[in-house]
């Protein structure tokens, strides 16, 4: 093969390859623009029209205008028009007067941040950076504390494996109580400090204590731990619990439990732990893999997001906490539900 022919060949391959890439890009851009300018595929309403009373806040994943924005529906009419806020979040929590918003910041370089807004999502009160992709956030019942979990994503990923960072902040002044990994851990009555422990999925009991997950990556064990903020200590309660969520009456904890597979094929099923009796009920009426921190609609109903067939879209489903009946879709095209009782 002559040198000339080789140069022709490589030029041809380069032009075709890069040209095809540009073609794919232009078409993707056009489609994106079209979707953005289309009216939302869900019925929407202006925020001002949002009804008062108990609401469910969530991340709107309906294609079209308002995709990725925080939206709300009345608890009494979850399939009604959604009031879309001018606030984009990957993960949402809310109280009557504040919204916790975790998101990936768009830019030429990736960054991730936690932000606290007022209830309308209009004025920002606090902001701090996250070390990676957002995962979970929750307020304490009185709204004075907020917990955030994010993955630690960067180059360190490969060399140190799966890693999360969970931090509790005071909402009043933004003071950080530090990464939970720096707190004391007691497992089965013994102080414990496994190298690969990670914390995720905080749910608050009140403004002095909470539950969370501690996971030991290598051993594959996870525990429900009860944390005490005054002593910065966490004590194991139960094994095989991830992403706990305390019911409004404080009597039960919903969580996800590994019920099959491992690694990439892991299968989580929702389960409920009754604190008084210590019994665990795995809710196998839900056969799909559920990877979410469950929310409570009321003391008898669980909410969680499930990805649907469209990439980037998901639906919020409701399931009876007693394991009775099949899961039902509550809010289509929604993610990260948060129930707010009075707004």
């Amino acid at each position, binding site marked *: 093969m002559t040198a000339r022919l080789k140069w022709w060949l490589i030029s041809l391959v380069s032009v075709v390859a890069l040209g095809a890439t540009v073609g794919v*890009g232009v078409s993707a851009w056009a489609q994106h623009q079209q979707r953005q300018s289309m009216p939302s595929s869900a019925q929407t309403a202006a925020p001002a029209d949002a009804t008062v009373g108990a609401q469910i806040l969530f991340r709107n994943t309906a294609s079209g205008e308002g995709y990725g924005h925080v939206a709300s529906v009345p608890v009494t009419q979850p399939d009604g028009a959604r009031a879309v806020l001018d606030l984009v979040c990957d993960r949402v929590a809310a109280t009557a007067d504040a919204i916790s918003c975790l998101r990936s910041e768009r830019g030429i370089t990736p960054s991730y941040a936690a932000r606290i807004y007022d209830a309308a999502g209009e004025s920002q009160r606090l902001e701090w950076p996250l070390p990676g992709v957002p995962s979970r956030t929750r307020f304490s019942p009185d709204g004075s504390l907020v917990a955030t979990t994010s*993955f630690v994503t960067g180059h360190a990923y490969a060399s140190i494996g799966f890693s999360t960072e969970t931090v509790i902040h005071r909402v009043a002044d933004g003071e950080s109580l530090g990464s939970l990994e720096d707190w004391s851990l007691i497992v089965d009555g013994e102080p414990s400090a496994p190298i690969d422990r990670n914390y995720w999925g905080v749910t608050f009991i009140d403004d002095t204590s909470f539950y969370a997950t501690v996971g030991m990556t290598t051993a594959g064990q996870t525990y429900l731990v009860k944390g005490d903020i005054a002593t910065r200590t966490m004590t194991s309660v139960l094994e095989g619990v991830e992403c706990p969520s305390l019911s409004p009456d404080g009597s039960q904890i919903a969580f996800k439990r590994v019920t099959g597979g491992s690694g990439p094929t892991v299968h989580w099923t929702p389960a409920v732990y009754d604190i008084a009796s210590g019994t665990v009920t795995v809710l196998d009426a839900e056969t799909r893999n559920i990877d979410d921190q469950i929310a409570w609609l009321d003391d008898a109903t669980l909410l969680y997001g499930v990805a649907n067939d469209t990439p980037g879209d998901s639906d919020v489903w409701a399931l009876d906490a007693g394991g009775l009946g099949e899961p039902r879709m509550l809010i289509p095209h929604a993610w990260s539900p948060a129930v707010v009782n009075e707004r």
Partner: protein
Amino acid sequence: MYISFSNKPAQAEPSSRDGAKRQPGRRTVSSTVVTLGVVSMLTDISSESVAAILPLYVTGFLGMSTIAFGVLDGFYQGVSALVRIAGGYTSDRIGRPKWVAFTGYALAAVARIGLLFATGFAALTAVISADRIGKGIRTAPRDAVITASSRPDNLGTSFGVHRMLDNIGAAVGPLLAFFILLLIPDGYGTVFAASLAFAVIGVTILGLFVPNVRARRREAADARATNAPRPKFDWGVVTSGPMRRVLAAAGILGLLTIGDGFVYLALQARNDFAAQWFPLLYVGTNIVFLALAIPLGRLADRVGRARVFVYGHAGILGAYLAAALPIADAAATVLCLVLLGAFYAATDGVLAALAAQLTTPETHGTGIAAAQTVVALSRFLSAAGFGILWFVVGREASMLIVAGALIVAIPFAALLLRPLLSAPRAEATADSEHTDVEPIDAEPRK
């Protein structure tokens, strides 16, 4: 850079079985090395653009957990290390380093086609596995080609050139991916298409323009090397004599190389500057690495590769100290990145050059692969062990302990390599007449 890319094909064409070209200009490196650098650069743009957006894609777009992904990653690293030895050995035995390397590059390119059409987690893991296996296969044979295309006295420089181009790709890839996502927020498919395009261009350049050179022992006069010039593959070259000292020293130092991940974590835990820039700290390290790759490679050619390799560990020692000591926040972060980048520039390509210098042409691939594997495995052990220390004695104290051990280990490694610490010219007479460089391109950034 001084090398002209355009005069390369003419030069590479003559079925150069006797690959090492002696060019008049002392400061030039072979065009084959530059071509391989360009191939690596394109391939790195391809793989790093995908790697950078994968966490976002998996969690934000596919709505899945990254947990499984992180756990599997360590496993792939192990597979890559084992495949690497096999790749080096195969290319030595069949004498076709270019085509063994080509197989590795092609495998990674083919995997990317799958990425375009599959969106499941299983598909993702298959693609990543293929990418890692491909990387394992291609690294040592490619380094053998670099060695065969270089003169013994500029091997370090050749590696430096290759590493620099390689790291340009590693720095450009993520920026390209995030730029695409900035224009098209859900443009993951476009990133995958771009990744495939760069992989295909890279593997085509390799196939068309890189000769299948294999260093052959030149004249008998050259072969007076003490470490037994043998016509056939001989494991003894790799497992005994000076190579054994190099492997031992690399292993000992590798055991005290805890990985930049921990350094970044230590910085991130303590100051907001590093926390905010955490996802990008490795890009800073890469940029320093690429800037210093050629100067330090050239230095290694001048003062001795073993010397630069051993004393280059002062860079990571300094990084530990900067991460542990109470220095002003942003300054500590920047200092750490500079020291880490210098450490990689002084050890990454230089170790490959050292391994090539000490092996026979018939064993270059295996020898380079052996050195890389020792480093990869010892660093893996180090990271695991350091994790324990981190939680037993705390962040800063554990850094200082490893730094203290390194202060002892560096002179010890120097003692171990004392016969090799002189300049390469002296070594050449002692060992072999040509040098080989292998890029340990996987180490610093994945």
